[in-house]
Structures are given as C-alpha cells and as structure tokens.
C-alpha cells in the first residue's frame, strides 16, 4: 500500500512569508507526528496527534508554528512569518498505534 506522502517536497520562501506543509498518513493510522530535521542532525519532535486531537505540541519552537489534523487524517503544519532558522526538512510520520512510526520523504524548506 501507499506510504506516508508529503507535499510539497521542496519549498522556498522569502523571510516573513507564511508556508503550509501537508502530510498524508498511511490509511488507518491513528497517530501522526511532525519532526524537524536540521542539516546534518537527527529529527527533532515537534507535535503529535491521535486522530484529530493534538495531544502534544511541546516541541513546536515558537507560536509561529501551528499544526492541525481536523478530520483525523491529513495534517498540515503551518509556519507563519518564516525566519531563516526555520530552514530544515520537515518530516511527518504515522503509526497505527504504538511504537512503529513510518516516515514520509519530508519537505525541504529553505527560507531566504
């Protein structure tokens, strides 16, 4: 079956622009995670959804970051007023329930 898909794969934004990154999880997966991966680093947790409920947003770096999953399937990560330090790969992962997380290919965001 299809894996986790993310779009766009690449996004270039001017500093101060708003961006929206989309994640389509594996069908039937209850849990959805967003991670941020800086160049040459490991992924870092941003936020977690169980169905439509955002149960943990402790990793969001600032109030410019906002995530939603209104129908418990597709999720969107929105970054307002982007800054250069937001440049990274944003990874989405989904899980049926429990330990095993399946990652998408990521969206590479470059803020100029």
């Amino acid at each position, binding site marked *: 079956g299809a894996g*986790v898909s993310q779009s766009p794969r690449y996004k270039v934004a001017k500093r101060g622009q708003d961006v929206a990154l989309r994640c389509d999880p594996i069908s039937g997966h209850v*849990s959805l*995670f967003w*991670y941020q991966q800086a160049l*040459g*680093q*490991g*992924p*870092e*947790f941003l936020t*977690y959804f169980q169905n439509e409920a955002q*149960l*943990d947003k402790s*990793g969001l770096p600032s109030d410019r970051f906002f995530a939603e999953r209104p129908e418990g399937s597709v999720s969107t990560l929105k970054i307002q007023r982007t800054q250069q330090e937001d440049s990274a790969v944003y*990874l989405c*992962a989904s*899980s049926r329930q*429990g*330990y*095993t*997380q*399946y*990652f*998408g*290919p*990521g969206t590479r965001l470059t803020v100029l």
Partner: protein
Amino acid sequence: QQQVKQSPQSLIVQKGGISIINCAYENTAFDYFPWYQQFPGKGPALLIAIRPDVSEKKEGRFTISFNKSAKQFSLHIMDSQPGDSATYFCAATDSGGSNYKLTFGKGTLLTVNP
C-alpha cells in the same frame, strides 16, 4: 540536554567488514529503542528495534546489542555492503505517556567502500 548520544559521527568500512554504531541514553523511562536508516533525500526507515527486556536482537545482517545497566545500545552490521552506505540514527521513546514520540541521536554517516 542531549538525551541520546550517538557515536561515531562518521564511519568508513570496507565491503564485508563489520560496522558498529553506539548510542547511550540518560532517561531510564525509555522502553523502546529503534534504529533508522536514512538515504539522501528520503525519510528515515525503520531498520530494527529492541525493548529493554532482551539483550540482543538479530534480523539478517543487523543486530542490536542492549545493555540496560550501562544505558547503552549498539547496532552491528555484519558483512557490510556498499548499499548499506547511509546515515543511521538511533532513537528512543518512553511509552509511559502514551505518546511514543521519538528522541533521536545525531546520526552516523556510514560509508562502505567496495
């Protein structure tokens, strides 16, 4: 505070050799330890995982060794192949909060020379 420390940062191995990557953790609540493999431009893919009730798990050429008292675990890749060249991440999670968010190490860039 880096909760999962990974070493080495990079590793070069000859084809057929053994690749060994080490990780140490601090949070004793961690109860699941996966290893992920990531190729350039791709997302991380689960390779193998272990829980602290066993000391070793083997899947094909990949083995995890786990030392609970030392709070350390390692990945061994036997008969390393050029196709194994990738970045490897260890990770850990605490399921107690019913969250399963992963804490990753910084990664090891493995190069297997033909």
